């Protein structure tokens, strides 16, 4: 059975169809989950895609954290379900307290849209399981508030527990320790600023994102008790 991926849509979310296209291309099935939905029953994994949930009013993710679906995501995560927040989704996860730290405005105070090189730092997450640390990937970033920050103790924990999932190879936005993505202590909740779904086809200049999404779908398959998608078309 192909894993079924729930893609959360808040008003203002705009990358939901891109994520659906990318995961379907890798053999998964996907459904859009409206922000008022109180349950994620029936899904094997959940993606919070990029965009501007609730217009990013107040600050990114600050209003989305109060949506019914966000409570459902927290429940789903607590039960060990695979969750990835991409860009605005990462911001929502930090605002909701599912991941530590915060994403502040980029150093230089400008929006940045470009394809950058990132490096897998930990294989201990649902997004990077099975990948060799040090693997480099070319993945687009697209954000104004992507400058990850946290207190010293949190940073020490993230490092000590191998929870820094991906790092920028070069400094791009001022993030502490060049952090591009982190996970929770269970490794099942990941947030990252780069957009793997934008690196999902040779026509887009990179298909490196498929390695991350593929690992995530494998985790979803395991969560559903199914088999790996490793042989699925498009991989």
């Amino acid at each position, binding site marked *: 059975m192909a894993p079924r991926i729930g893609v959360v849509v808040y*008003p*203002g979310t705009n990358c939901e169809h891109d994520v659906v296209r990318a995961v379907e291309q890798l053999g998964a099935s996907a459904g859009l989950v409206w922000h008022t939905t109180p349950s994620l029953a029936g899904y094997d994994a959940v993606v919070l895609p990029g965009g501007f949930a609730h217009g990013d009013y107040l600050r990114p993710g600050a209003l989305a954290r109060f949506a019914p679906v966000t409570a459902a995501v927290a429940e789903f995560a607590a039960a060990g379900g695979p969750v990835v927040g991409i860009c605005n989704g990462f911001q929502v996860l930090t605002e909701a307290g599912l991941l530590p730290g915060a994403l502040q405005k980029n150093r230089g105070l400008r929006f940045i849209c470009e394809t950058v090189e990132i490096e897998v730092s930990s294989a201990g997450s649902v997004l990077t399981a099975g990948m060799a640390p040090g693997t480099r990937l070319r993945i687009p970033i697209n954000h104004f508030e992507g400058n990850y920050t946290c207190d010293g103790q949190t940073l020490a924990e993230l490092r000590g527990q191998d929870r820094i999932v991906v790092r920028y190879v070069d400094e791009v936005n001022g993030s502490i320790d060049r952090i591009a993505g982190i996970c929770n202590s269970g490794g099942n909740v990941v947030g990252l600023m780069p957009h793997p779904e934008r690196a999902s086809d040779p026509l887009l200049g990179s298909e490196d994102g498929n390695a991350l999404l593929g690992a995530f779908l494998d985790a979803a398959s395991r969560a559903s008790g199914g088999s790996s998608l490793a042989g699925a078309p498009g991989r």
Partner: protein
Amino acid sequence: MTDDTATDGLGDRAVHAVSGPGDGTAGSAGVSSHQAPHRVLGLTDAELSAIRAVLGREPNRVELALYGVMWSEHCSYKSSRIHLRRLPTDGPGVLVGPGENAGVIDAGEGIAVAVRIESHNHPSAIEPKQGAATGVGGILRDIFTMGARPIAVMDPLFFGGLDDARQRWLVEGVVAGISGYGNSVGVPTVGGELTFDPCYAQNPLVNVLCLGVLPVERLVLGRATGAGNLAVLLGSRTGRDGIGGVSVLASAGFAGEDDGSETAAKRPNVQVGDPYEEKRLIEACLELLDAGLVVGVQDLGGAGLVCATSETAARGGVGMDVDVTAVPLREAGMAPDEIMTSESQERMLAIVTPEHLARVEAVCARWEVRASVVGRVTDPPPDGPGILRVLDGFDGPELAAVPAASLSEDAPLYRRPLRRPAELDARLADDPGLLPPPDDAGADLVTLLTDPAWVYRQYDHQLFTNTVVGPGGDAAVLRLAAPGLRPTERGVALSTDSKPRWCALDPRSGAAAIVAEAALNVACVGAQPAAVVNCLNFGNPEHPEVMWQLSEAIDGMSEACIALGLPVIGGNVSFYNESGGRDIDPTPVVGVVGLIDQLRTVPPGIRLTPGASIVVLGSLTGDGAANLGGSRWAVEVRGHRDGTPPPIDLAAHRRLIDLVVGLGRQGAGNAGVVGIHDVSGGGVGVTLAEMALGSGVGFEVAGIADHRMLFGEAPSRVVVATTDPESLLARAGGAGVPGQVIGVAEGERLVVEGLVDVALTDARAVWQNRLPGALDELAANS
């Protein structure tokens, strides 16, 4: 003013000859509160008489306000329309031509493409961030009004020089406005143009093009039909922002006082944008259209509610009753004429049958979009046109009653006087080719290089994962895909171009060359040019020289479109780009849409690969190849703005396009082409340098005799890097296109034998740092 009632294919509409400046045919003179009410609204005495004739009585205050905005230059095209008629608008693939909210062409396999281009020049001059942001918002509404999902935006921008603090403020603000609105509303900005010239110092130009896609069967037109149907206002509440935006602001020049008092006074005429509201409005409207719940939709842009209600009614041949008390307001105490003419953003008008109202309201509620019934469609009286009535409560007193079509279709048409500028012959004769040659052509070449990445890095240009070639290429290339469209291999290419320095000298050949260049740009990425849109940015139409420029530019554009087989499917005219009596250089901007049947590989792009041969297709030495008239080198390096721009042979150009379309696709049969770039601003020198900078591979070429051949901008030429020059030249020969090998791609230097020898790293440093060096320093100090 004389009423000569000349007609020329305009039905029975009178065309009024205008004797000359100072005849009071427009409101560009300073507006003072001591003037008669109609003049404060931008209407002339003659226009007031015309309104009396339409109504058969004296208009009241509300009616006068309606005519004031609808008969403004911006809304009515009253000075340009008789000229615009000369553009070719028909073609086999055209589904909707000019006159609707957007042009639409058939892209094959049941997919249609909607395109429109507009200007937001005057608002951006006054409040750059909101001016540019609301320009994006407005053009998006024009596209989804047609039933299309907007999938790409492009922004041609024109500013004065970066050495001036105010220009840097304008650049910062405009880019932040486009970035802030476009990224948040969720439509990628995939390209544009960036031009710096002193003529734009007081009048920056902010043009915006939007492309949308739709299943052909979802195509809708902004029409109201069926008496008893409801006009439902969707989106934001109505406030006092933007009142008079089209009349007071966009239909007059700036007096040019440099104390800022004038622009400060006009700031309330600029609207304020909310991309989050627009995002929900887009999704709600597309859902309504998909579900077949609306008869027609119309965006509220310039001239607000009066424009949307009168245009939908006029197109449908009906009337409409509008209850101003039903319009949700942002502030108390707004007068009826303010409600009708407010340009508050993020609003749409949907025409709905009464039985669908509840479902429409439910869809809107889900998207948190306000929906209010503000009007009812009415039958026209048996003996006359449909009437737009403004009511104080549906059963309340009548505040205004005018024929709906008279607002949108009966504006006066002006045949303004034309005059070829007196100094033009002297300017044409002043050949920059006679200037002393540069001591170091390599140094001059480097000064002409600017990497626009500082701008487009701030734009989300990848959303929807359609962008195959983003900003920085000859043309943007997108997969033609969107949710709800069935997957195909089709692609679309987009380019916007301009040549204001040429148009200042010869608007006819300049405008023809712009169409030719934009078409060649889409060919360079493997797309077949299919349709043209234009944004005509000009000075004050009361200056006969400006009207001559417009007339000539339209003729040149028309000639090129006919020769290249391209229909014009939409356009926009922006007049009054003047300050203190000085007009901008004529700046027609052309957007060309190209179609790709099978988009399977990334086009070769602006690059070189080591060992590739470098070939020039088109003439390297022929007519005009050494002509520096209107060139970037003459103007930007030497400050010499005169001369005769190179001629264009449109038949030869068409042969080149036909050849290049096949070369712009990678894979078997493209003659080993690994890089391709057209020759335009800065000549062969800049073209080669940009290919080197785009790939990190240097070049060594010969056969370019002097700086005139290096920097001359003769059209109809393309530089190609190929691994198989023999087959490329054979193909060119077969296509009737001259071609020659001029050198090879290799090394880490830019070398033109006898002229240029520059290290790639040095060129790169200047190229990359030009914009950040000027603009990030500003941010650091502010």
